[in-house]
């Protein structure tokens, strides 16, 4: 195995040195913009009130136990977040999607989602066999499913893999909410 090469930072330029008071004054100026950014993000989140689109709850997906309907991925919860992971069939792990790996490798603790009655699953393009080997290699803790070709249009709907979608379950019905 070749060890990855990480560039040294030691030779890079550095910020000017300031005393604590001058540093704090600059930080306070930056804080004004940071707080405005936080407030705007909160305002968008507080107003993220969209209608929803009905999705066929029986849309088949392939998991560890074979084919299951989309509604089973909720595992009884009211909500589900699905990350649609790109896949390059037949290519080695090293050539799989760097962006999807970046995103997915950060999702390591679903307990806080579960506490809000929200589940999380990765829905991968391509075959379950390849995707599940990749999941095992990466040691991902969240459940993985493959999206059969006939299910892609129903879920991805003209978009592309690499998206995150949020769903709501109402009894035996499923809706996409984001």
């Amino acid at each position, binding site marked *: *195995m*070749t060890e*990855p*090469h*990480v*560039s*040294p*930072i030691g*030779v*890079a*330029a*550095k*910020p000017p040195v300031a005393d604590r008071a001058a540093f704090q004054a600059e930080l306070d100026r930056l804080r004004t913009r940071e707080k405005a950014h936080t407030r705007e993000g909160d305002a968008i989140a507080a107003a993220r009130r969209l209608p929803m689109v009905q999705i066929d709850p029986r849309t088949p997906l392939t998991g560890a136990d074979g084919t299951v309907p989309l509604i089973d991925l909720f595992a009884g919860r009211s909500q589900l977040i699905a*990350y649609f992971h*790109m*896949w*390059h*069939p*037949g*290519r*080695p*792990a*090293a*050539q*799989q*999607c*760097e*962006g*999807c*790996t*970046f*995103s997915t*490798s*950060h*999702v390591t603790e679903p307990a806080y989602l579960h506490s809000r009655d929200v589940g999380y699953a990765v829905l991968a*393009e*391509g*075959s379950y*066999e*390849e995707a599940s*080997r*990749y999941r095992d*290699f*990466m*040691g991902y803790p969240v459940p993985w499913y493959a999206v059969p070709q006939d299910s892609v249009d129903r879920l991805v709907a003209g978009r*592309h893999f*690499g998206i*995150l979608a949020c769903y709501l379950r109402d009894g035996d019905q499923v809706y996409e909410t984001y």
Partner: protein
Amino acid sequence: MAPSYGLLDRTVYGRQEDWEDSPDGWPQRWGSTGGQFQLDGRPTAQWPRLRAGRDDDLGPPPDGGSARTCPLHGEPPAAATP
């Protein structure tokens, strides 16, 4: 969904990407249109798995494999400049 960037944004050199408004001499090895999540030819998060002895063999290629493109795939970053 990926806190690494939020954390890097708080560090002195930020994401070290070439679009950032950085003074001369700041490290800006990385781009933002592909390659920034790779290290030496593979997704960066794979390296600790390999170091831990995990096998990255994905098995035989499936029938009908095709080379679909990924918008985040680009050329790997250029070698570090001194």
